[in-house]
């Protein structure tokens, strides 16, 4: 139950007002008619001219009052249903009413702000609700007033709110976002939409909320979820306001690019596309790819992604580990729509190479060279176009004689079909199936290297001398064979690391339940190093990519103004570049006489053929 003190001059009367559970208001009707109310008004009196009757007005003030009981200077309220009330009164009464309402409002705000300061954690979201409710009430109130008053009232409210908005977002946004308070957020948005600088404040708050987001564990899926929730918020609470859409987009881009998204996504896709990823149906996979691609859009260094993806794809293709060629192709086509055909050109080239290689291998097997000269070993060769594939460091290896013969014959065969093409063997990418006779049974081994046909015991140095493999690589290989899960070799002395003076023995004791055994090469933190060096290489390539893009554009257009050129470049380059960087590249091209400035307009470039 609330009590209002209504007063005109010396006549003061208390009115008891109660609001029941159904939100309907009960009060003493008679008490509202004050004797002498036609007399001069003073500041103690509020006259509300409400066309809709008392109820609404009272409810307004009532709810304000009951929410903030401790505001002592709620001095008076008088509501007059005034069909017969003199017109002139209104004009005098309204400013007074305005003042009171505004004062109440202001106090309420001050209070809430104060409360947030004292009591940050609990009060955070409550503050919003109060503010929002106030706002709603004000809205109702405004509907009841004439347009002039409404205007002034709005203005003043705006001012008051404006002075407080900066205190609002920090805390509340986080709470609303975390709690997925779609409706509250919508209220806040609606409230703020009326204020001058409030959007900016809200935008900042939202932006920093997104940027500060900390995600751990399964980064990609949590990022994906986060993105979905933001999307929903944007849709439901921010009515897809362009401004906010852009803000969230930028903020999210920032967030994502803090954590090497190119690497994450490339590796994630690799995992999904490799053989052995059971339990995901085609449709599920497709859906997953779509979701990941949403994140892909935010990657700033799309060139890094390309390089990493290419590296992984190469591994999958060369080792025949693709779980589904359809899925592979579907990704490629998605990337193509996303970034243009230039982007996927090389990736598509890789698929083409693999298909062509199959044909070449088939006809190689049919060829007379094979039939006449070779027997026993089956060889399959991938012929890869340089440029489409990642570059692999050449490795000198002295191959066993049998393999050398095979390679030479293949070379001969290949150049008979494609004269003029140059073949380089990348032995480090090869793998072979080897049949070996162990005392405990025949096994077929897939291994990287074996020399133990001729001698049962070899020292590290011996192996190194006869193969010519460099230390690091050889150690890794031997470690895989002698210290890994599948120990076909025995190392003396025993131990996890391979040292220069170790000896290796053919493991007579070896047995395994399967006929075909795969010996995995031990990965020496390889992935980290590898992707770091891939990334490094991509960065080194960037100036050339910029130069190439400039030249391509200028070649096509001959003359192009600076702003146009720069806009085009920003569109074409799939990694972040600064304006100054572009300019430097342009200057360098001018210096190297690929371009010149127009004599009459230094902001125009001409292509020099």
């Amino acid at each position, binding site marked *: 139950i609330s009590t209002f003190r209504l007063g005109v001059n010396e006549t003061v009367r208390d009115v008891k007002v109660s609001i029941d559970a159904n939100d309907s208001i009960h009060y003493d009707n008679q008490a509202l008619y004050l004797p002498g109310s036609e007399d001069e008004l003073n500041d103690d009196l509020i006259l509300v001219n409400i066309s809709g009757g008392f109820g609404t007005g009272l409810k307004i003030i009532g709810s304000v009052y009951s929410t903030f009981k401790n505001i002592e200077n709620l001095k008076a309220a008088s509501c007059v249903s005034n069909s017969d009330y003199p017109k002139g009164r209104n004009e005098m009464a309204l400013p007074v009413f305005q003042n009171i309402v505004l004062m109440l409002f202001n106090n309420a705000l001050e209070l809430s702000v104060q409360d947030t300061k004292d009591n940050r954690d609990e009060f955070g979201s409550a503050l919003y609700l109060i503010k929002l409710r106030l706002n709603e009430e004000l809205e109702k109130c405004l509907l009841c007033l004439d347009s002039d008053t409404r205007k002034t009232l709005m203005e003043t409210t705006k001012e008051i709110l404006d002075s407080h908005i900066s205190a609002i977002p920090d805390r509340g946004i986080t709470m609303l976002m975390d709690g997925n308070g779609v409706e509250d957020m919508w209220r806040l948005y609606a409230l703020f939409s009326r204020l001058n600088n409030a959007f900016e404040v809200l935008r900042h708050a939202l932006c920093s909320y997104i940027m500060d987001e900390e995600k751990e564990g399964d980064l990609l899926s949590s990022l994906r979820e986060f993105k979905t929730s933001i999307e929903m918020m944007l849709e439901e609470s921010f009515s897809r306001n362009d401004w906010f859409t852009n803000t969230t987009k930028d903020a999210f881009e920032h967030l994502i690019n803090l954590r090497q998204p190119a690497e994450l996504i490339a590796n994630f896709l690799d995992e999904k596309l490799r053989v052995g990823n059971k339990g995901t149906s085609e449709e599920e996979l497709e859906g997953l790819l779509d979701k990941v691609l949403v994140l892909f859009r935010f990657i700033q260094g799309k060139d890094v992604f390309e390089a990493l993806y290419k590296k992984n794809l190469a591994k999958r293709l060369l080792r025949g580990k693709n779980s589904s060629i359809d899925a592979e192709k579907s990704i490629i086509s998605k990337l193509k729509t996303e970034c243009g055909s230039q982007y996927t050109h090389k990736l598509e080239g890789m698929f083409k190479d693999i298909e062509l290689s199959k044909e070449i291998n088939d006809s190689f097997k049919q060829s007379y060279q094979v039939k006449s000269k070779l027997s026993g070993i089956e060889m399959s060769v991938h012929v890869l176009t340089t440029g489409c594939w990642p570059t692999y460091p050449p490795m000198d290896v002295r191959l066993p004689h049998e393999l050398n013969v095979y390679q030479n014959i293949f070379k001969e065969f290949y150049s008979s079909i494609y004269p003029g093409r140059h073949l380089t063997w990348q032995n480090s990418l090869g793998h072979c199936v080897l049949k070996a006779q162990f005392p405990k049974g025949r096994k077929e081994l897939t291994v990287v290297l074996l020399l133990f046909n001729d001698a049962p015991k070899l020292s590290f140095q011996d192996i190194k001398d006869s193969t010519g493999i460099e230390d690091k690589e050889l150690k890794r290989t031997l470690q895989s064979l002698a210290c890994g899960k599948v120990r076909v070799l025995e190392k003396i002395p025993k131990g996890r690391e391979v040292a220069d003076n170790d000896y290796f023995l053919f493991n007579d004791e070896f047995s395994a339940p399967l006929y075909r055994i795969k010996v995995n090469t031990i990965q020496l933190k390889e992935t980290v190093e590898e992707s770091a060096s891939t990334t490094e290489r991509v960065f080194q390539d960037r100036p050339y990519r910029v130069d190439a893009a400039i030249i391509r554009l200028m070649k096509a257009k001959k003359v192009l103004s*600076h*702003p146009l050129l720069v806009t085009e470049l920003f569109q074409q380059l799939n990694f972040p570049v600064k304006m*100054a960087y572009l*300019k*430097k590249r*342009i*200057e360098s091209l*001018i*210096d190297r006489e690929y371009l010149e*400035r127009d004599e009459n307009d*230094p*902001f*125009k*470039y001409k292509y020099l053929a």
Partner: protein
Amino acid sequence: MNSSSYSTSNFIDIFEIYRRYCDIRSSKKNQNSKEALTQLLKLVELRGQASSLYNDLSKLMSYLDLTVDSGRFACFYDFVFFMCRENGQKNITLEKAIVAWKLVLNGRFRLLNEWCNFVEKHQRHNVSEDTWQQILAFSRCVHEDLEGYDPKGAWPVLIDDFVDYMHRIGISNSCSSRIHNRSSSYEDFEDEACKSD
């Protein structure tokens, strides 16, 4: 070869070089003119160390009437760059550029001192022909208070950096110091000229 007042046999004086330079420039730009310029540059290098280069240039400048025609001044301005080139290199050293700027742009570029100070402090590389030429354009269309400068324009990065720098140190501040420095700048130049003698 020509009626030079100097006695050395294969010596052509600055006036003659300039005359030829202008001839080449005024003929249509093509491969020939580029070659002609290279030839001329070789001839210039035959003169040996350009010890009296700045003296020559200022002599030439006082002889030429550069006040009337902006096109003629531009030609002379480019010529200065040409003369500062060494060993067939395309760019000129920072030290040379600064002395040359102080010589030729004196009274023509209101931010000359600020520019030279800035370049001296912040630029480490040589000055390219493009930057050299754009500074002339910059001096012509950008005012003392940097009005007329369009950050979206195609100015060389060095000039963008200069404008940033000017904004940072505050234009008003630098303007007063500019007036203050005006007399000393002239002395600087005199100093340089003496040294090169």
